[in-house]
């Protein structure tokens, strides 16, 4: 892999260079608003303001991939985001909801994130980056990172076209992961590329082991009764669907008469069963949605953040999706060339999973 080591303050020049050299027509990157961090889309390079390290801020508001869902125009968009967001974008490319030729995906290291409102409230203590020791300390004070981040094993910037990894001493390692990424980097003035490696096997294994342990500690939903109890507060507002980066149908089944029955349709359903819970299809909605995102869920936790009833959906969507991904040995967002599990097959497989 080709890359270069930069100082923190050089990042500003890097992003300006991408716009200046027309490697991208616009750039989506996190920027600071007071204590908070939110995404912005910039086309004018003078609007990129220092300090750029807001890109590492451990705050999650919306999954950036959701912003560019449906980006099929030829103009190029660069996305500077956390690995889960980049992985969701890669899944969207595979789902033909984005054009691979018109995106430049730039992943940055993630430490695990706080809900953006928690982050803003405790910005003084958290800062632009948190180490794992600090995360534990803050947890003791009742400020915890999001559950989906606790069980995430893909926090390192090794996906997308370009990866930006943190190295000791206020420095970053910028590496072109794909040819497209290398090409974009080499166009920027003042950057000379050398052989660099962004794979950090040991660190990755440690993160994965910790994540697995945390996942095992999560409360399990192991029967239909428990699932009913878990979802009892659900008002079927479908916010989890709207904020999910990989839920993409233009016309969702649950917006149509069968999925969202009104008037006579609702009465018919009630007559069929004698009594139904309303709003209708609560269990059906979540079970269908978990099947629909089962192979592509990147576990970003946007569904949980979006839930107005504070249902801890991380214990449902990513946990169950991972089980399905395991049987297909598929890691969503790892490789843009790897086919989605449901559009490919092996001639001999899965016979033990059928009966």
């Amino acid at each position, binding site marked *: 892999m080709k890359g270069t080591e930069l100082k923190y303050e050089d990042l500003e020049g890097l992003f300006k260079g991408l716009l200046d050299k027309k490697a991208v027509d616009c750039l989506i990157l996190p920027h600071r608003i007071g204590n908070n961090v939110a995404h912005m889309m910039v086309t004018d390079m003078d609007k990129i303001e220092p300090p750029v390290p807001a890109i590492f801020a451990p705050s999650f508001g919306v999954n950036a991939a959701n912003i560019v869902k449906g980006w099929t125009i030829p103009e190029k968009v660069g996305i500077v985001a956390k690995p889960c967001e980049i992985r969701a974008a890669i899944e969207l490319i595979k789902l033909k909801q984005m054009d691979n030729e018109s995106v430049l995906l730039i992943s940055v290291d993630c430490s695990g994130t706080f809900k953006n409102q928690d982050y803003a409230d405790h910005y003084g203590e958290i800062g632009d980056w948190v180490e794992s020791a600090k995360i534990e300390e803050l947890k003791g004070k009742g400020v915890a990172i999001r559950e989906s981040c606790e069980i995430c094993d893909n926090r390192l910037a090794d996906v997308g076209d370009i990866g930006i990894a943190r190295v000791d001493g206020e420095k970053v390692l910028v590496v072109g992961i794909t040819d497209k990424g290398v090409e974009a980097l080499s166009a920027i003035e003042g950057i000379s590329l050398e052989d660099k490696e962004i794979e950090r096997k040991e660190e990755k294994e440690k993160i994965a082991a910790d994540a697995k342990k945390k996942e095992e500690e999560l409360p399990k*939903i*192991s*029967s*239909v*009764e*428990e*699932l009913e109890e878990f979802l009892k507060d659900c008002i079927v507002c479908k916010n989890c669907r709207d904020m999910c980066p990989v839920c993409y149908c233009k016309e969702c*089944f649950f917006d149509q008469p069968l999925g969202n029955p009104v008037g006579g349709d609702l009465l018919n359903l009630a007559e*069929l*069963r004698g*009594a*139904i*819970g309303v709003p209708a299809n*609560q*269990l*059906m909605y979540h*079970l*269908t949605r*978990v*099947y629909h995102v*089962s*192979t592509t869920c990147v576990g970003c936790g946007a569904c949980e953040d979006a839930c107005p009833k504070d249902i801890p959906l991380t214990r449902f969507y990513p946990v*169950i999706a991972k*089980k*399905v991904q395991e*049987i*297909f040995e598929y890691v969503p967002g790892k490789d843009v060339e790897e086919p989605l*599990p*449901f*559009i490919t*097959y092996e*001639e*001999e*497989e*899965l016979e033990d*999973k*059928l*009966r």
Partner: protein
Amino acid sequence: MGEEAKEEFEPKIIGFTCNWCTYAGADLAGTSRKKYPPNVRLIRLMCSGRLDPMFVLKVLLNGADAVFIGGCHPGECHYIKGNFYARRRIAAIRTILKEFGLDNRVRSEWCSASEGDKFARIMKEMAEDIKKLGPNPMRGKVL
């Protein structure tokens, strides 16, 4: 309720069968006068690949006790590869249902048009298995 009611429990099984194989296999079982329990209600699909896993969810949520899915043997699909896709989908939905202990209510088998015997045997086995398992926990629930 109690012991007596359990004895009388007759499971309701919804079967989704491929037009080219299992449906014809069921037909053959009938014409060759094979006996099997009358618990299954068949729904004919043109291919097991037509089975949207939502059907399985809907059947179970509406209170049926089990779902049977019948398709052509791998490699013998009338549409070349419909059952290969079906196999992946069924494996996925069963993996999800397994989390909630419902996977043993979904069974899929490859059964060709000439395997009337096999069809009758599967139906017999399934009716027995589901009787042992008892009614679907979602039966009669306000969902």
